[in-house]
Each structure stands twice: as C-alpha cells, then as structure tokens.
C-alpha cells in the first residue's frame, strides 16, 4: 500500500533522468540542439554572386564551378570552430583536391584577409557577405556550415559545425567519390 505513494516520486525521477541524459547528449555534441534540417538538399543550388574578399571592385561567382563537384564553406574570423577546422580545410584543398568556395560572413574585411594570409587560403574564391545577402539564400544560421554541390548544380549534403576527420572520412569523402563518378 505504501508503494503507491512512491509512484509520483518514480515519475519525477524518470523525468529527471531524461533531462540529465538530454543535457549530457547536448554537451557532447555542440550541434545537437542546433541542427536544423536543411531544406536545400536535393534542390538546385542558389547562385552566389558576391564581392571578392580580396578586391571588392571585382565579383566572384559560384557559376565558375558549374559542372564540377564543389564544396561551399561559410566561415568568419569571429567563429571559433572556423579557426579549429581551418588547418583541416587546408589539408583537404591541398592534398585531397577538394574545391572549396568560401563565403566570408558578417566579418571584418581586414581580419578575414589577415586570417587567410597567416593560416593559408584553401578557397578557389572567397565572397564577402557582410549583410547575409547570400548566406540567407542557403538557409545558413551559423558558422561554419559546409555544403556539397554536384555536377548538375544540386545541393547534396550539408554539415553545420566544424569539418573533422571523422566527418570527412565517414561522410564527405565517400560522397565526393560517388559524385565525381556520376
């Protein structure tokens, strides 16, 4: 008969356990709560036309990569994960031949240039987007975000958060290999 009064307590403990597990999962994966599914997967990639980060009198355009498999990387110097992933992006560009198109988002122009000068430039071209004009077309809500676009110009994949060896080997590399053949 007494056990009955333990039921609400049991329910309370069960709810607490769910909260603790949820928080624990979030703390392990920084993107857990933020990974909003992209609606662009399988759709035609929005064209990017932006001022060139290195010379704003010129424009850079993603159409220069039409017919190729390419990777869009949205980055900024205010974003700590971008600092963390940069060396790996350099490796992918130089050793694995990944074609990165960069969008420098809401950044300080001088800081962005210095960043690429000091740490190396993995990008085929970098567009300067201080007002979110282009990134909004891509549904970007944080940095870094990385997209894969196939030869037909269709968005095939998106990753919010830093590019790591696990992501590269587990998802990106197999996908790029498949798309290069297709």
């Amino acid at each position, binding site marked *: 008969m007494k056990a009955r009064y333990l039921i609400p307590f049991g329910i309370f403990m069960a709810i607490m356990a769910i909260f603790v597990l949820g928080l624990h999962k979030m703390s392990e994966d920084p993107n857990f*709560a*933020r990974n*909003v*599914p*992209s*609606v*662009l997967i399988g759709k035609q990639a929005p064209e990017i036309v932006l001022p060139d980060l290195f010379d704003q009198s010129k424009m850079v355009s993603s159409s220069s990569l039409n017919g190729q498999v390419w990777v869009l990387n949205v980055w900024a110097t205010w974003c700590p994960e971008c600092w963390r992933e940069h060396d790996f992006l350099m490796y992918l560009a130089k050793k694995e031949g990944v074609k990165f198109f960069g969008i420098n988002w*809401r950044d300080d122009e001088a800081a962005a240039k210095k960043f690429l000068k000091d740490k190396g430039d993995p990008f085929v071209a970098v567009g300067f987007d201080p*007002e*979110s004009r282009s990134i*909004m*077309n*891509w*549904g970007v*809500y*944080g940095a870094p975000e990385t997209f894969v676009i196939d030869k037909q110009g269709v968005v095939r994949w998106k990753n919010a958060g830093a590019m790591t060896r696990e992501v590269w080997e587990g998802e990106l590399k197999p996908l790029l290999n498949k798309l290069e053949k297709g």
Partner: protein
Amino acid sequence: MRRFWFFALLLLPVLVLANIEAYRFDDPAKEARYRGLIAELRCLVCQNQNLADSNAELAQDMRRQTYEMVQNGSSNEEIVTFMVQRYGDFVLYSPPFRPSTALLWIGPFIIFVVGVVILLIFIRRRNKEPEVELSSAEHARAQSLLDNKK
C-alpha cells in the same frame, strides 16, 4: 518625492520595448504587416525567440530582409514562402500540419487521451472493489460504538 522616483523606476523596463533599428515605412499598413511578420518568424540562432525579440545578427539581417520585401510590395505569403524555402518550416512559430510536424500537433491530444484512459481504468477498478461484509459480532460492535458517541 521618494515615492515618485520609485514609480518612475517601475517604468524603466518599458524602455526595453524601444526598437533597435527604426525602419521607416511609407504606409502604416506596411508597418503593421512588418510587425506581424517579425513576430511570427523565428530566429534561427536563439531558437526560442522570434525575429522581433532577437538581437542576434542573423535576426537583424532577416528583419532587414523582411523590411525590404514589405517595402517593395511583397505579400505576407510571399515573404513567409521566401523564408520557408530557405530555412524550412522551422522558421515559422506556427508550423503547417504535415507528416513531419504531425506529432507536434497531435502529440498533446494523444497524451490527453492516454490520461483519460488511465483515469477511467483507475475509477472502474475502484468501483469493482468488493464491499466488505461484516460479521454479526462486528455489526454489534459498530452499533455500540455509534451509541456511545451519542
């Protein structure tokens, strides 16, 4: 005097309502639409805030986008479609009913029905409990106790 300052201080939070960017509208109807839209569109960065409340930089840019579209004569529907095509249903505070959002809409009712069923089972079981039969000796004892009370 002190009392006056006390009440004046109470008004301080109202200042927070002052908008961050003051957009100028050529038409009050457009301004009303703009206010309605930024109240129902969600900020993607701080996901429990709408665009109107959020100070995030992306929210500022999305407000500017909304403002520009309203000023250029886009309908509310066009602006909402523009946002949904880019950010998905997630950008809406009241998402449309679709297979992916079905649980969101039906979930509370399922929980309600489950609760009612549990309650009914509980009540029924209680009614079914057999009434306790008293022996004649117990009846007599009960009677004497009741008499004593008087």
